[in-house]
């Protein structure tokens, strides 16, 4: 194997696979990247056996071939190279020479037969708008659970559903919850959906997808299988195992009896919460909201007896004063995921689930559980 390649596209490809490779290196091969040189390009693959990523970049191929190299070492070397042409030359199956300007590196190659086979999702392939996918992941990812004992919550539920009656269009929906909060986003889909399909995309894949979606505006294609889901754009394929199990009934989490409404400017609330939470207890991040008439006071204090408070104007439809506590970080996760000018809270009391949404849109809904002192 021998090829010549520009530093920048190579570095971009190597950067993409860094978070996919297994950091803890339980198997040596999971720390490696597979380089395949063929047809005027190289294909780089990495996997942790759950999430796999393949990416390509153009190269001048002198001799075709395949090698497996330590992904982190290669990335760290290439990152530090001057912007130049890099030469990869396989000496033997276990030795690679990398030349760049006056620099020369000898790297160990790993047996390519041991590199795990990257699976392929099997199922229907369909296109998906970039902005739609980015928005949906963006509005749900933060609510995924990190608690491994409830593994069906360690990801985002991705659901395609047929119209429920003639007047409706098919829907795509994403839902995530960590049992303290829930985020749900739903969009009409301009394509036929014959039957309901739903999968749970694991957390790591969601984070990788968010990175991929940030790179450009290119539309994605999706292959949704029963064991895997695959996201494809030119030069990149991300494939992940799906979480096997049933997502809990999220509809039952959404309160139906709430009646106390409170609305305000979303960005103003976010900046007040950001300031006030500096003095909240560093573990719990608890802040208090006291509403009376058209004013809401947001306050916090910490074990060192420091305290802060600030008032903002609100629309409140109850005569009675109302007080409730929230985790400031959870609240800000929701406020930052939203886009509109206004945010509305609908309460029942200070110990039951609270609805949070943009009153001028109907595509996203959040449920947040309060905190108690």
């Amino acid at each position, binding site marked *: 194997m021998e090829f010549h390649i520009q530093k920048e596209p190579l570095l971009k490809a190597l950067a993409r696979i860094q978070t996919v490779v297994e950091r*803890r290196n*339980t198997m040596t091969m999971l720390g490696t990247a597979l380089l395949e040189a063929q047809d005027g390009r190289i294909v780089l693959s990495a996997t942790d056996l759950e999430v796999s990523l393949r990416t390509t970049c153009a190269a001048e191929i002198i001799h075709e071939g395949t090698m497996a190299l330590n992904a982190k070492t290669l990335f760290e070397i290439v990152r530090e190279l001057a912007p130049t042409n890099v030469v990869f030359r396989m000496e033997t199956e276990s030795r690679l020479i990398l030349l760049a300007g006056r620099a020369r590196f000898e790297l160990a190659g790993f047996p390519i037969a041991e590199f795990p086979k990257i699976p392929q999702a099997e199922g229907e392939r369909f296109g998906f708008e970039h902005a739609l996918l980015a928005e949906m992941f963006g509005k749900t990812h933060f609510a995924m659970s990190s608690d*491994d*004992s409830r*593994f069906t919550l360690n990801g985002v539920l991705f*659901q395609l*559903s047929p119209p*429920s009656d003639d007047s409706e269009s098919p829907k795509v929906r994403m839902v995530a*919850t960590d*049992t*303290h*909060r*829930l985020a*749900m986003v*739903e969009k009409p889909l301009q394509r036929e959906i014959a039957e*309901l399909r*739903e999968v749970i995309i694991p957390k790591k894949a969601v984070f990788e997808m968010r990175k991929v979606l940030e790179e450009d505006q290119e539309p994605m294609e999706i292959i949704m299988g029963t064991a895997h889901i695959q996201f494809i754009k030119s030069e990149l394929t991300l494939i992940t195992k799906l979480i*096997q*199990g*049933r*997502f*809990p*009934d*999220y*509809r*039952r*989490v*959404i*309160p*139906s009896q*709430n*009646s106390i*409404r409170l609305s305000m400017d979303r960005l103003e609330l976010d900046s007040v919460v950001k300031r006030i939470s500096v003095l909240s*207890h*560093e*573990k*719990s*991040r*608890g802040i208090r909201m006291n509403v009376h008439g058209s004013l809401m006071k947001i306050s916090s204090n910490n074990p060192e007896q420091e305290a802060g408070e600030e008032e903002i104007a609100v629309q409140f439809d109850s005569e009675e004063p109302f007080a409730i*506590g929230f*985790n400031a970080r*959870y609240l800000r996760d929701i406020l930052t995921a939203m886009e509109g000018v206004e945010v509305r809270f*609908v309460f029942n009391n200070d*110990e*039951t*689930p609270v*609805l949070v*949404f943009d*009153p001028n849109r*109907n*595509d*996203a*809904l959040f*449920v947040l*559980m*309060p*905190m*108690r*002192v």
Partner: protein
Amino acid sequence: MIFFLLHACHGTGPDVMRKIIHIDMDAFYASVEQRDNPAFRGHPLVVGGRSARGVVAAASYEARKFGVRSAMAMQKALAQCPNLIVVPPRMAAYKAVSQQIQAIFLEYTDLMEPLSLDEAFLDVTTNKKGMVSASMVAQEIRARIRQQTGLTASAGVSINKFLAKVASDMNKPDGFTLIAPQQASSFIATLPIEKFYGVGKVTATKMHAMGIKTGADLLRRPLVELETAFGKTGRFYYQIVRNQDDRPVDPSRERHSVGTEDTFEQDLRDPDALLARLEFIVHEVVRRMEKCHFSGKTLTLKIKFADFRQVTRSRTSDRPIMDAAEMMAIARLLFRRIAIPPRGVRLLGITLSGPCQNAPGTWRQLTLPYFNLEDDHHNPATPIRIHANHENFL
């Protein structure tokens, strides 16, 4: 094999006899290592740290023939079995298997309570497959675990958690035991007291001293005597020996603490000797913590003096206490603050608690009510709409 049927009518009333299964993977961590590395198969193997103070987290059945047990100091294990293969733990691999088996359990019932990565209670009184025989369910689950993971599990079936747990331990490895309702009382009567769940070395010795060697002996003791000797746990023993164990299989049960304590054969006075014992306790706590995947921020040190006087000291860290070194550093700090009386110490214990056990006056995050109940899973076919202004939610 003849399958006994647990007779029960369907329903959820309090009088319905329950069908509880306890599933326990055999030598879990060690079996996963042997599965993934053919060279390890048939050889004595332990999972754990090789360092001077390393502790055995799991031992293969081959290693157990040499007397190697989990929680044993690694040095001792190596002394008893010089050819012992020592493998560092791969929690990610064990967690992956745990997810596989939990997914199998959930196909039969949502009333599944995991006790750790490799152990769970299932209530299959009414199950998703409509199977009448809990034995059939247990055997089917064992077969599927073997087929899907290549590992063996033992199962116990009975009318409550206590008996199901005792049953699963009867025919290990790869075993199955049913304690049918009509056998329950005679079974408990002949059960050696050491086999009672929750009776460890120390309690067993105390029971023996009281003349209690079997369930039948325990049955004859009045409640007041057991409560005097064992406190709250005494009442528990009193009830379970009478088949009164109505603890539900609770899918949302969260562990609040992990701890262990050690009563010494002789009271200890030398601070260095006490610190050495403390270090052993720390490793055992870490082992248990990893086993049930628990993390906590508050460490509590308990010291019982020779005169039975007891003090506890605790300290809360700003992030979860994860490893033995960190835990030992805190334990040592707490230990140094306690004056050791001349007659010495009879017991040391360490408990790691949190995240729920906050000090009073601090904030507590509430959980969405549905997840406290965790009943059925959703029916995805039922539509849900987010209307403009969400009037349907108000």
